[in-house]
Every structure is written in C-alpha cells, then in structure tokens.
C-alpha cells in the first residue's frame, strides 16, 4: 500500500508547489514589504511643480492617504496615469506623488501634458526618501492609515479594478478604525 501512496503523495506535493511557482498571475518581482503595519517614513521634500513649495506627509497626518511612486522613465507609470486621474476625480483620498530617479523639469512636463492627479508631488532629489520607503521600482503605491501607518502596498500599474478591489475596502476599514 505505502509503495503506491508515497510516490503519489510526493507527486501531489510537487504539483502543488509547481502550481504556485508557475502561476502566470503571480508577479515574481513583487516582494512583500516589511513596512506594512509600520509607521510611514517621513517625506520632507519640495514640490515638482515649484521647488519653493515643501511637500511633507506630516501635513496629511490623521487622514488616510496614498503615496504613488513614479518616474518619467517608467513605462508602466504612463500606463497607470489614466487610472490615477480617474481616481483623483473621485476625491476619495489625497494622492501624494513621489518622483524617483528623475529630473524635475521632465516630471513637471509630464504632469503638464498628461494631467496632474496628485494633491502634492514630492521630488526625491537623491532617492533617499524612496530608499526609506523600501522602493525598488516604479510604480509602487502605498496606503497610509489615520495613525500614519502603512497598511498596504501595491506593486504594479494601478487600474480602476485594483482601486475598487484592493484600495477602497481598505480605505473604508481604515476610516472606521480611525474614527
């Protein structure tokens, strides 16, 4: 009996492992962020549109807000831009942009031609803020709760579906918890 069951069990175990590993929907580059549940690192930079205007996330303390990391070099950011504009129209939460590995005038031009979905857009001059947020690519979108904790990170271009499915329920829950 064991002679048949054991190889069969081993086969099933391997099949399950491969099903996880080879799942085409799984993004092998998406890593879980150790910052989930931790305090959001400080953003203290200046605005892309105006180098004299400071952008800080402490200004949004007590609110649920999202931080969207992007750059003009990032093709997937162009892809998600329409979705972000749509989301901004809903006025659900403030959207802080964080421009990463980029040039200020390029980023400014991008927003002028494609439209600006951001409540404020911080320009990360030396990528230090992005490192503190554990950013390793773009686009990445973080959700911060009323306590100033990161509660969710989405790595990939934003879409209206992702917004509906992943963000809106979490925003509602964070507001309930914070109220």
């Amino acid at each position, binding site marked *: 009996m064991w002679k048949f069951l054991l190889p069969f069990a081993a086969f099933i175990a391997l099949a399950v492992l491969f099903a996880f590993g080879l799942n085409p929907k799984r993004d092998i580059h998406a*890593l879980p*962020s*150790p910052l989930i549940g931790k305090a959001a690192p400080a953003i203290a930079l200046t605005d892309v549109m105006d180098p004299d205007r400071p952008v800080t996330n402490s200004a949004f303390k007590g609110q649920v807000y999202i931080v969207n990391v992007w750059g003009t070099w990032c093709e997937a950011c162009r892809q998600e831009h329409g979705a972000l504009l749509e989301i901004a129209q809903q006025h659900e939460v403030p959207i802080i942009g964080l421009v990463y590995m980029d040039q200020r005038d390029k980023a400014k031009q991008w927003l002028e031609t494609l439209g600006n979905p951001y409540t404020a857009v911080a320009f990360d001059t030396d*990528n230090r803020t992005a*490192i503190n947020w*554990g950013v*390793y690519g773009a686009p990445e979108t973080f959700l911060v709760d009323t306590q100033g904790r990161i509660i969710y990170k989405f790595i990939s271009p934003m879409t209206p579906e992702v917004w509906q499915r992943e963000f809106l329920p979490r925003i509602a829950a964070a507001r309930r918890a914070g109220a």
Partner: protein
Amino acid sequence: MKLLVLLFGFALCVLTAALTHALDANGQLEDPVLQTRFERITKDLRCLVCQNESIADSNVELAGDLRRQVQEMLIAGKSDEAIFDFMTERYGDFVRFNPPLEPKTLLIWGAPFAVLVLGIGIIFRVVRRRSRMPLDDEPTPGSP
C-alpha cells in the same frame, strides 16, 4: 562669541575633511578595513531590481544608491549588523543572500539537512533489504 564661531568653523572644516577624505578618487573608501567590509556587505545584499545580482555587481541605479548608503553608514561608524538591519527593515529578509536563521527561514536552512537524513535513511533500508536477499550465484534450493 568670536571664539565660538571660530571653533565651530574649525569643527565644520574637520568634519567635511573627514567626510570627503573617506572616499578616494575611484569612489573607494580610503580606509582599507572599511573597504573590505564594504565589499563583503555589498556582496551579501541583493539588488532588488535584478534579484539575482548583488548590489556589488549590479549597474542598476538602485544598487548604486544602496552602495552609497552602505558607504555612508560605514564612514559614520555603523556596525555590519546595523547596516543589514537598515536594509532588511526596508526591503525585507529577501535583500540578504544569507538570510538569518529564524522560525520563518527554518525551512530554507533545514531542508538540505532533512533531505540528507532522508537519503541516508533510504540507503540504509535498501542496503539492509538487499543483505537479507539470497545472492544470485547461490543455487536456490529445489532448482536443478
């Protein structure tokens, strides 16, 4: 007051000198001990963009930023442990090629030994069963 300003200025000069002198023309740390540590640490940190390269080997911008971070922390006198902690706090254990032994990573560290024990067990059983079998060249009773 004047003396204070002078002292402050002097301290500032010494500090900037210390910082600029910490790197040589090739961007390497001047202190050879620090440079060896730098090389060892950056070899153990994964570049998260290319994922199978270390930040010592990778040309990606993020790797450059993280190398700069390691250099600065070494110059500031931080321990290896503090530097690895800084990285794992932000990027998770995945950033290390040599993850620490923890309940979470027990499977990674334990699997080779478990497989070794399993293999030895299988060999042991097979050998024991074979030793109980009759040898091929011995005539079996009853055959002509």
